[in-house]
């Protein structure tokens, strides 16, 4: 490899990080070693210090830059993902281009993962040597500045998405709120009462839905889905399919005559959780926002048989449009908030609980609809026959949660939701209620108090995981009942509890298509399918991809207050970004040197962002720096070596490899001899 003519002046700074590093690595030895053995590479000073990231530590570096005229800096400390920015800024503060600084991770990759002190110290030397060899080939770079588009895309119109959209819109910035269903509202719209205060869900949600629907800064795109996303923070371009509602929204008054006259009844599996019907032309619920119905083309008689058109006949404003096509919109936005929420665990998977086979086993969402006064039973808690009130009700916690066979995690809301149900059953029917739980988890504000209230109301609590729910009776007292078989782990007794109705408190699961959503937006999800936050403690709102934020249950199970808080937090982050007006991007980009390019076009197909264009006239390729994301695949693929990757050049990497192996060369020879 070509040696650089002029020697760089490199400073090496080895951090103790208290005892985090110094407890395992002999920091003094490493520092002295670097000063003596890396002279050839250009090291002119090597120091160690308790906390390099402290202001005193940073000043140490700055002083050397000024007084010794350092041209390169290597800091051996923690992961660059933690403090690269800190040290780059320190260099910048002393007049050294920030990209001439290299961070070597001797904590996450060394002292924290190794116990052999000698080996860890040797490894520290090796990786510092790699960093020094690399930094020689660093170039002074300027960040790329791109303007931030002031609009935001919010995907998912549940409570988290609504909150985020409203906060941003109220601050004066445009928002596109995309919702898959015909109305916004999400799961919260299905509930009657919300724990722990038992306030009416519709009363607190509807005003927010209406606000979002009327807001001059919010473009509501319901019955719509994002199909494609291009670009990067500051300027994403999203392609959205607005499915045909089969009516002209501008003319519709939402009077409701159409769905009244529509002769086709359809079981509503979404909003009514299969407990009730809707029509083929429908709004999911009376307070829906927007108020316009949609025609469900799969079930509409006209689309099936070619006749009917009852809605069209009766519509006073003549707005039905059977020929309407899906619309494809492209919108430009600077930031994205994903708030697509959760799906309910499919209780059919636990066959021994009998859901789908035993009529009086209900899911939690079914019970929510049943207890809702606007729901299919008018708020009456009744058995599947639609009229008989239960005298004994069993509520089974943790269905599909905290179970190695299904989901290992705790769904966090189902204990409280079960307590809420117990209260509602008692209030509405006076029935005896049994809660079957593994542990009661009521950790948020006002939750433990609610649990105590339930204890006082006389609800029975049985600690044990339900083994089976069956209609096979053994005793006369079990006749006509469902029997819940459980071991009471507090007394050690096997119990058979006869009930009229069993409610399964199913867990929350990621949306069935959460992996596809993650892929669409270029972010990651955990093995379970929840989207991964940038940091589990310090940044549960951003993702690894700049400009993409997450809010609500899409990140993991949580209750309404936490979903709202996360929606608002995501909005605050986005507004902070918008206020900056432009954003500095890492200048990690590929460049093709025209004079070396043979025009083979191999690179053209390697780029997933179509950033490489081919000039037919000159027969050479060129990278569009606005589209290039800097992955470096083309750099590695060019047979002519015509492409360089800024920040990750061949020289930098090859030199680093040399440096990493510096210590070994003599050892190797010894072995060979």
């Amino acid at each position: 490899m070509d040696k650089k003519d002029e020697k760089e002046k490199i400073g090496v700074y080895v951090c103790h990080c208290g005892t985090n590093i110094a407890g395992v690595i002999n920091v003094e030895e490493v520092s002295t070693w670097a000063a003596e053995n890396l002279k050839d590479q250009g090291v002119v000073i090597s120091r160690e210090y308790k906390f390099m990231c402290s202001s005193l530590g940073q000043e140490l570096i700055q002083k050397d830059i000024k007084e010794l005229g350092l041209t390169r800096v290597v800091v051996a400390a923690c992961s660059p993902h933690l403090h690269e920015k800190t040290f780059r800024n320190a260099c910048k503060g002393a007049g050294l281009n920030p990209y001439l600084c290299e961070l070597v991770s001797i904590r996450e990759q060394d002292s924290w993962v190794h116990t052999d002190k000698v080996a860890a110290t040797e490894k520290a030397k090796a990786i510092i040597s790699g960093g020094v060899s690399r930094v020689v080939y660093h170039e002074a770079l300027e960040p790329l500045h791109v303007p931030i588009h002031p609009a935001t895309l919010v995907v998912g119109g549940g409570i988290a998405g609504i909150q985020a959209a409203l906060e941003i819109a109220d601050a004066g910035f445009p928002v596109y709120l995309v919702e898959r269903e015909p109305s916004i509202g999400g799961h919260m719209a299905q509930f009657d009462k919300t724990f722990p205060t038992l306030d009416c869900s519709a009363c607190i949600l509807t005003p927010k839905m209406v606000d979002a629907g009327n807001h001059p800064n919010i473009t509501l795109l319901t019955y719509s889905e994002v199909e494609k996303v291009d670009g990067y923070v500051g300027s994403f371009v999203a392609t959205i399919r607005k499915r045909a509602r089969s009516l002209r929204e501008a003319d519709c008054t939402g009077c409701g005559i159409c769905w009244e006259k529509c002769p086709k009844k359809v079981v509503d599996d979404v909003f009514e959780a299969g407990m009730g019907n809707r029509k083929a032309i429908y709004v999911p619920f009376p307070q829906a926002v927007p108020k316009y119905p949609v025609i469900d083309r799969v079930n509409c008689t006209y689309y099936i048989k070619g006749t009917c058109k009852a809605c069209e006949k009766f519509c006073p404003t003549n707005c039905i449009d059977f020929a309407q096509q899906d619309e494809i919109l492209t919108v430009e936005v600077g930031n994205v908030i994903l708030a697509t929420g959760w799906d309910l665990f499919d209780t059919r998977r636990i066959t021994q609980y009998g859901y789908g086979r035993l009529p009086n086993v209900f899911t939690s969402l079914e019970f929510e609809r049943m207890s809702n006064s606007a729901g299919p039973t008018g708020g009456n808690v009744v058995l599947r026959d639609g009229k008989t009130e239960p005298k004994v009700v069993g509520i089974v916690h943790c269905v599909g949660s905290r179970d190695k066979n299904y989901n290992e995690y705790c769904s966090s809301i189902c204990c409280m939701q079960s307590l809420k149900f117990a209260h509602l059953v008692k209030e509405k029917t006076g029935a005896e209620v049994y809660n079957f739980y593994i542990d009661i988890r009521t950790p948020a504000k006002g939750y433990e108090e609610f649990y105590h209230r339930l204890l006082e109301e006389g609800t029975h609590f049985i600690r044990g995981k339900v083994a089976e729910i069956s209609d096979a009776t053994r005793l006369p007292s079990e006749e006509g009942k469902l029997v819940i078989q459980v071991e009471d782990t507090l007394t050690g007794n096997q119990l058979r509890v006869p009930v009229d109705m069993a409610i399964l408190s199913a867990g929350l699961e990621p949306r069935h298509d959460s992996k596809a959503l993650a892929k669409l937006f270029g972010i990651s999800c955990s093995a379970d399918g929840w989207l991964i936050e940038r940091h589990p403690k310090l940044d549960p709102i951003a993702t690894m991809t700049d400009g993409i934020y997450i809010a609500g249950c899409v990140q993991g199970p949580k209750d309404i207050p936490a979903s709202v808080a996360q929606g608002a937090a995501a909005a605050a982050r986005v507004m902070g970004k918008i206020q900056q007006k432009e954003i500095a991007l890492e200048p990690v980009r590929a460049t093709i040197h025209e004079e070396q390019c043979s025009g083979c076009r191999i690179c053209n197909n390697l780029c997933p962002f179509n950033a490489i264009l081919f000039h037919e006239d000159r027969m050479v390729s060129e990278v569009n720096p606005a589209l290039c994301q800097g992955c470096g695949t083309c750099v590695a693929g060019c047979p002519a070596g015509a492409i360089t990757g800024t920040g990750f050049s061949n020289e930098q990497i090859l030199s680093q490899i040399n440096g990493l192996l510096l210590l070994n060369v003599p050892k190797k020879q010894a072995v060979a001899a």
Partner: protein
Amino acid sequence: MTDKPETKFEPVIIGFTCNWCSYRAADMAGTARMKYAPNVRLTRLMCSGRLDPTFVFKAFAGGADAVLVSGCHPGDCHYINQNYKAMRRFHLMKRVLVQMGIEPGRLKLLWASAAEGAMFAREVNSFVEEVRALGPLNWNSNHVHTADHVMSVVAEGHEHEAEVAA
């Protein structure tokens, strides 16, 4: 394999990680204080797609006993699908290693997500053990000299094409 040194052989392994998943897996192993063998020295690339085969050969030439290539799981690459390109190059490189007389077991591909710190630590440990079993890289003695053997290695998986007269 020829004579092994008396003391426990400590292989030197150069590892390549991508910035988004596998480097963060290594970070995660650190944050969670999971212990693994100190034999691997990592180089950060933006993506496994950046891995120029030259880097791997350079590492071997410079004295590494083995090379670890890691990236995001297929489908999770931060740059959409560049790790598939890395995977293709990986298989090519294995082939070339064999032709050069280097045991293919000295090159390992590892997919690791940012959450898989424990897996990363485990896999590093098992790789170190595998390489320890192979012994130090001893290029000359491994070199396959017979033309027939070279041909059979080159043609592996391409038996049909190899039949065609030159």
